[in-house]
């Protein structure tokens, strides 16, 4: 079973820079073997990122795991596949079609396939995995599970992965369940030895030990954001299970059980409610925050839709709340296990009436951790809902990021809270009175003072002293103060990050969130083609003045987003009162994470249009 070499095109040769994609059936136990593969690359000191592309079911449907290996550190999706590990007959045709010309196809050759099933510009590597398993194991489940480890062994030979690294990882993975270590190592070597005897090893794609990973860590955004909530002092979490946010709430529970129990009594310094629905979840958060606890919920688009009425209440009655929106393919049930950035407008303007909300856009799990803690501070400081806009790509995929950091001298910003001492000293208290000129009033926690500081919280309009009022001037006064508070928010939210192109340019690009790594790679590729773009990564709404200055400084600004309707662009136009013609939408919304190649192609195509079309005219 040797490598076919009658190619019309040269086989791809690349060390430490290629894309491997595993096509599996979900529920077959492939996930842990695939994760072992990605981790072994990292342990060899070669940067890698992984993306799980999975269906909304538990067993039997196609699932893919894409690993980007890049010594130069590009961790977004590149686009295209160099080595396809095709383990799912159902998706064979599309998987084979996705391979780069000159790339490699690895498959289970137990059952012969007709030549029509292959491409003549792809290197085919067959291994009779099922036959090997059937020979080695009698138990059906073992045959299935060890098949995954066996192909990992084969790949270790084909790609020259350091086998001791995989051995170590297996030992770590099964620590405490030591009886499982030996059989897994056996399966690993079974595959590896078979490949070394039967196949031409290595192939053109190879791994060389490098020193490019450093002390970086490999984590998901949901895990990191949940940890950020622990560090940021959240004590109450309420949630309703929804993909892709559930693992955030579950991780919060796991972190809290480890880190947040009274050392003596083992009692919990946290409370987690799995609510009956998203309405209840946000209600619990609002009730807890009203009463002085730091509280959050995690959800996705459909949950945001359900929470609308409560979000308006929290905005109008000025109650802190932190809402993680792990965005997925929308609208409606949409593509529950695919990624998008399509809730920008539904969060920014959530609820009926005139509302505007603070959004944070972390670019990766590391910022997910940092922004989670920041959001809890901002919610208390601004007394309003804060949305942390993650997505499935950040939330559920393992990302290689710099280690998480925490400054032990940091103190929680609990915002403007009137204490019993202040009330005793005769400080005037008006729940909706702007005493500092920043639009943010003082509040009291229930139970603070026997006779002063009590007020009635309501969703109806009221005067500065929280007294019910339907008087026009009282209403307008309050609504204007809320606007003023939103201006204050501009100064408090994370600033955008600007990067100047190596050469002066009249073109800019704005991007945010999980687009970041693909964007970085795309910029490099564009520069190689002589296309220079200044960039700005937006990290929050309301937009900092820097954003408007950036747009003003360029003739055209590409706005790269992962949704159909250019939602961030819409927000930029309306909030910044910008000429729409200056903002050119670059939109990727098929549910997969955006690739560097897509951005390069889309911007290159658009540049042709832009440079041909007269300025100040709307673009298609």
């Amino acid at each position: 079973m040797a490598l076919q070499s009658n190619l019309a095109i040269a086989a791809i040769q690349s060390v430490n820079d290629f894309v491997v994609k595993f096509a599996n059936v979900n529920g077959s136990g492939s996930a842990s073997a695939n994760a072992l593969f990605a981790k072994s690359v990292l342990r060899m000191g070669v940067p890698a990122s992984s993306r799980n592309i999975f269906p909304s079911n538990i067993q039997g449907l196609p699932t893919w795991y894409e690993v980007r290996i890049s010594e130069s550190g590009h961790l977004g999706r590149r686009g295209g596949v160099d080595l396809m590990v095709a383990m799912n007959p159902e998706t064979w045709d599309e998987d084979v079609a996705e391979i780069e010309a000159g790339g490699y196809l690895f498959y289970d050759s137990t059952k012969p396939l007709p030549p029509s099933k292959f491409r003549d510009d792809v290197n085919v590597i067959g291994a009779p995995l099922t036959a090997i398993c059937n020979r080695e194991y009698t138990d059906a489940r073992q045959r299935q599970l060890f098949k995954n480890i066996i192909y990992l062994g084969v790949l270790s030979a084909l790609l020259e992965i350091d086998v001791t690294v995989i051995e170590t990882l297996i030992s770590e993975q099964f620590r405490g369940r030591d009886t499982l270590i030996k059989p897994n190592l056996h399966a690993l070597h079974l595959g590896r030895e078979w490949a070394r005897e039967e196949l031409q090893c290595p192939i053109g794609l190879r791994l060389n030990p490098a020193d490019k990973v450093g002390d970086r860590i490999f984590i998901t955004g949901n895990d990191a954001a949940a940890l950020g909530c622990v560090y940021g002092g959240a004590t109450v979490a309420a949630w309703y299970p929804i993909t892709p946010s559930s693992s955030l709430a579950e991780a919060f529970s796991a972190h809290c059980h480890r880190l947040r129990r009274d050392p003596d009594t083992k009692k919990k310094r946290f409370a987690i409610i799995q609510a009956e629905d998203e309405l209840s979840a946000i209600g619990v958060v609002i009730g807890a925050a009203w009463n002085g606890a730091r509280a959050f919920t995690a959800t996705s688009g459909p949950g945001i839709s359900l929470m609308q009425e409560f979000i308006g209440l929290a905005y109008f009655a000025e109650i802190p709340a932190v809402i993680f929106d792990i965005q997925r393919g929308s609208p409606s049930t949409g593509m529950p296990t695919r990624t998008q950035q399509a809730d920008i407008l539904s969060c920014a303007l959530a609820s009926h009436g005139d509302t505007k909300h603070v959004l944070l856009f972390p670019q990766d799990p590391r910022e997910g951790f940092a922004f989670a803690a920041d959001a809890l501070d901002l919610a208390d400081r601004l007394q309003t809902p804060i949305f942390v806009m993650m997505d499935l790509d950040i939330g559920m995929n393992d990302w290689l990021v710099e280690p998480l950091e925490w400054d032990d001298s940091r103190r929680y910003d609990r915002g403007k809270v009137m204490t019993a001492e202040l009330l005793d000293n005769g400080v005037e208290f008006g729940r909706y009175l702007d005493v500092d000129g920043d639009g943010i009033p003082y509040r009291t926690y229930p139970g603070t003072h026997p006779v002063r500081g009590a007020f009635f919280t309501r969703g109806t309009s009221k005067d500065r002293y929280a007294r019910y009022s339907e008087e026009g001037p009282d209403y307008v006064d309050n609504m204007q103060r809320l606007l003023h508070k939103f201006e204050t928010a501009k100064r408090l939210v994370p600033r955008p990050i600007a990067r100047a192109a190596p050469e002066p340019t009249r073109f800019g690009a704005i991007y945010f969130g999980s687009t970041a790594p693909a964007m970085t790679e795309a910029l490099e590729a564009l520069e190689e083609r002589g296309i220079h773009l200044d960039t700005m990564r937006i990290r929050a709404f309301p937009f900092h003045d820097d954003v408007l200055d950036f747009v003003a400084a360029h003739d055209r600004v590409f706005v790269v987003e992962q949704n159909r309707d250019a939602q961030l662009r819409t927000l930029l136009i309306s909030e910044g009162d910008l000429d729409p013609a200056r903002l050119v939408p670059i939109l990727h919304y098929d549910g997969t994470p955006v690739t560097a190649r897509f951005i390069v192609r889309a911007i290159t195509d658009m540049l042709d249009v832009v440079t041909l079309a007269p300025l100040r005219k709307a673009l298609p």
Partner: protein
Amino acid sequence: MTYIAKPRLHHPKLPTNALGFTRRDYEGAVSTLCAGCGHDSISAAIIQACYELSLPPHRIGKLSGIGCSSKTPTYFLGKSHGFNSVHGRMPSVLTGANLANRDLVYLGVSGDGDSASIGLGQFAHCLRRAVNMVYIVENNGVYGLTKGQFSATADKGSKARRGAVNTDAPIDLVALALQLGASFVARSFSGDKVQLVPLIKAAIEHKGAAFIDVISPCVAFNNNPESTKSFDYVRAHNETVNRLDVILGRDEITADYAPGTLETVVQHDGSILRLRKLAADYDPCDRISALTYLQQRHAAGEIVTGLLFVEPEAGDMHDLLDTVDAPLNGLGERDLCPGSAALARYNAAHR
């Protein structure tokens, strides 16, 4: 209007409770409900109960949803924080408030539209979770604020003032509460203060989810003789199972009831509930027989009132969650933040 404050002057010789507060200190703003509304009687009963229990007014949180009943927290306990939330969602807000600070007393005030229609889900789930609270439904069978539509507790065949007949089956919140695991379930009538005040006191003393369904005739839209929620109907069909006295641990215990008609229940906090039994075969500590009795009397056209069920040693949500004794809203960085050393361990475990 609700912003009209009551005059603070009162008779210098008004009696005071153990904290030195008069009954007036537990009052709120002037009610804007219709004259004669049953809800105002319930507000008065809440004021009386809190006064008699000598509760510090600022240690009470009063929460409500939307509707006539949900407006009433403005009209009692003016020194307490109040939260008029969104329609049918008081239970979740109260649950969150309770999670944040387990040391306050929580009154959840709702109506039949708020709890039996739009908020039925939240009603059910907060009782399941054993939230330590007193959940009062001011039950009049109609939507008052929107001018007289039937609610989900209106009896089948019940006639509205303008003659419309309700064709849908009614929801009995008491039966639901019993089934959902509420550990204190009572029903009363807004016109029966002698029964209602002790029930509210006992519910406040109770640790766990206490539910009181108070039939409260709507004088504007549902007090016609055909309505099963009218003054006349309730008075004519009331089947009272017991009369309650609440004796706090600090009170002198007197025994002035005839033996054989008394049932004594000691609650978790030491308070003693003395039930003068009116229905000889009624056992208020048996959930199953309570449910059966309720349904038997309902079939006979009677409305059972009194303390229908109590689980005196019930725990609450915090017991189930095993949270620390201190209120969560009082914990600071020292208690909550694991610090950079723990983060370094997290980093090391993810390489």
